[in-house]
């Protein structure tokens, strides 16, 4: 069935402009990060590309994009300013949700909370591949996994498909070079280092027109169980013990001391099915699944 309209969601983040830091600021502070208090906030570069590519899809698809939504977990002055810019550029909704903890290293939480805040019925969800300050690169993957949607990573450009207006041409960077795929929404797109996607600039008239609209600021969120804190005394990051041995803490024992903590390995794998006809692709995929023991 032809999809008539597209609703697009873009997740973005404001990050400190590290070029503003002086030499002294690069000394590691108490919270194990450089002093970025005085750095101007800028839009995370790959999120900026995502925001611009969404606008280009809107322009290219003309009336078929029924809504453009942007969202971030931040209501700082920089985020508010960006929200006003996006409204002036035609984003119908920009949701700012304040949080009270460091969001750099909890991509699964971000993905879950983003879907709770914005809803799940989007044709396209775009976000930058990684943030300049966190660089975990996982948010888009968790989003796709939670929604059960296909994900294309390191996207460089998006455009309508020439022949079929329900499809999108996606150019992305793969290990083998530039990959051009025809994709059918709904899907998640993780935008990489797109070479030509700097966010356009709204006119003063457009800014004044949208300035009167109130900003949409959501209820503040805390990560469940409280914000992640510094490691307690006596505990250090370490590699897992040899052989994968575990340390168990017996309940009711008063003098057991925690020896070590480590994150269990988590991984995902993806394979490009490169074959001729749909039947060939199905056969290749079946063989791969059998190889993986699935």
């Amino acid at each position, binding site marked *: 069935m032809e999809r008539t309209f597209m609703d697009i969601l873009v997740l973005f983040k404001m990050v400190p402009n590290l070029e503003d830091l002086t030499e002294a600021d690069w000394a590691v502070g108490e919270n194990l990060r450089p002093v970025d208090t005085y750095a101007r906030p800028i839009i995370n570069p790959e999120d900026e590309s995502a925001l611009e590519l969404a606008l280009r899809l809107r322009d290219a698809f003309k009336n078929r994009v029924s809504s453009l939504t942007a969202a971030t977990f931040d209501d700082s002055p920089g985020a508010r*300013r960006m929200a006003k810019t996006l409204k002036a550029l035609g984003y119908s909704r920009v949701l700012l949700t304040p949080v009270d903890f460091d969001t750099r290293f909890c991509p699964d939480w971000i993905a879950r909370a983003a879907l709770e805040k914005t809803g799940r019925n989007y044709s396209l969800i775009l976000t930058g591949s990684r943030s300049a300050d966190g660089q975990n690169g996982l948010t888009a993957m968790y989003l796709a996994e939670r929604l059960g949607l296909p994900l294309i990573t390191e996207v460089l450009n998006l455009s309508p498909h020439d022949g079929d207006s329900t499809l999108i041409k996606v150019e992305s960077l793969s290990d083998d070079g530039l990959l051009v795929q025809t994709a059918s929404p709904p899907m998640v797109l993780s935008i990489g280092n797109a070479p030509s996607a700097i966010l356009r600039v709204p006119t003063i008239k457009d800014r004044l027109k949208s300035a009167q609209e109130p900003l949409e600021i959501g209820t503040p969120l805390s990560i469940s169980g409280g914000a992640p804190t510094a490691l307690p005394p006596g505990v250090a990051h370490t590699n897992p013990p040899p052989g994968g041995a575990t340390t168990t803490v017996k309940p009711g024992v008063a003098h057991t001391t925690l020896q070590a903590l480590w994150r269990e390995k988590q991984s995902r794998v993806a394979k490009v099915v490169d074959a001729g006809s749909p039947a060939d692709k199905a056969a290749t995929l079946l063989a791969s699944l059998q190889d993986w023991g699935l």
Partner: protein
Amino acid sequence: MNSMNREEIVAGLKKLLPAERVITDEQVLKDASVDRFRKYENICGVYTQPIPAAIAYVESTGEISNVLVWASSGKVNIIPRAGISATEGGLETIVPNSVVLDCSRMNKILSIDHINMQATCQAGVSLQVLDDKCRAMGLTTGHSPQSKPLALMGGLTATRSIGQFSTLYGGIEDMIVGLEAVFPNGEITRIKNVPRRAAGPDIRHVVVGNEGALCFITEVTVKLFPFYPENNIFMGYILDSMKLGFEILREVMVKGYKPSIARLYDHEDGAYHFSHFAGDKCVLIFMAEGPEGIACATAEAIKAIVAAHPECQPVDPKHIERWFAHLNWDPKNIAEERIEIKETQNIGHTTEISANWSELNNIYEAVIKRVRAEVPDLTLLGGHSSHGYINGANIYFVYYYNLVDIKPEEEITKYHLAIKGIIVEETIKRGGSMCHHHGVGKHRTAWIKQEYGSSYYILKTLKDAFDPAKIMNMGDIWPIE
């Protein structure tokens, strides 16, 4: 105008200079036909100005003298060039078959004299290089235009430039002690280095600001000052009103205080730099520097002046310190700007004026009102004041616009000159000057007679006297009539 064709011009140059220093590569010549005024055309690979016949790199005063004598006899238009950071079309080769005469290879620092507090260098010396060398000795030129990483001493002198610390150190005209310049008839003149003299008019002012349209500057001597970066004191405030900001700047200057930085940004221009702490407010910035006693006293006095206006809220000085650490433009910024312009089809320019205190805010408000009403596609329109005097200050108007439905060569007329025209008109009619420090170039010549009024006689006579063959950067300052 000239009596030679391109080939004859190139052949003539090669008789005066080594052939490898006469450049005739087509793309290099195209790029040399414009400066940052036509940056959009350049980015798009469109070249609307006549392509010069050659670029000639000179390495001595004698070579310049020989070339100018030859050019005078053949009526070849000469464009003196140094750091290529010009913004007003001063380097545009509007006369067909011009020769760009480049002094960037005359780059020797001849002396740094800490007894007499003077530094002497050739015109092709980079200001950044000179000042870094002085700072390593505990001295400074005090000159810090935003183009500091790019600009060369000859060009800075020729354009009557001013730096970001001018409120303390003055403009280039206050810093130049003596110089050497070559005139179109080949005459090599040297103005000696003395602290002051009353031996007739100050002839340095014939050379400083001539924009290469009277002579070719080959060597300059500038004053030096002791350098006390450890005593820098930063102050910043946010406020609602430009009018109040101008009044505070005036009070600081009139009471005799000389902070090295005294700036007022409106909310639009300020937002670009300071939105993270200023929101939508105007921003006042001061820096006091110098010997500890002077820096402290200046800072305390300024704080007291501002404190008398409760509408001004102080900001953490560390914000100002971070801004100060990133003042200047370097080649990386220029390269990034080109990419952004190309991708966003959004471009910015500036026009700087000066006026007496009583008219500054009137000019500011009139310009903002008219430009908003008359010019389409604006994305940013604002300004700041950055150079204060006892009797007035400058305003640096900043404007960005989207390029909508135009060819590259139409940008100048549809937007830039339209805006510049409004700024110039509103300034001149209120007794101000249309050029504070960027020079007239080729694009404010339309208003030069209004700028000067009856004193245009003096200006015109200089050109008639020193460049009778009309070969020096024709179309700059003096319109071609």
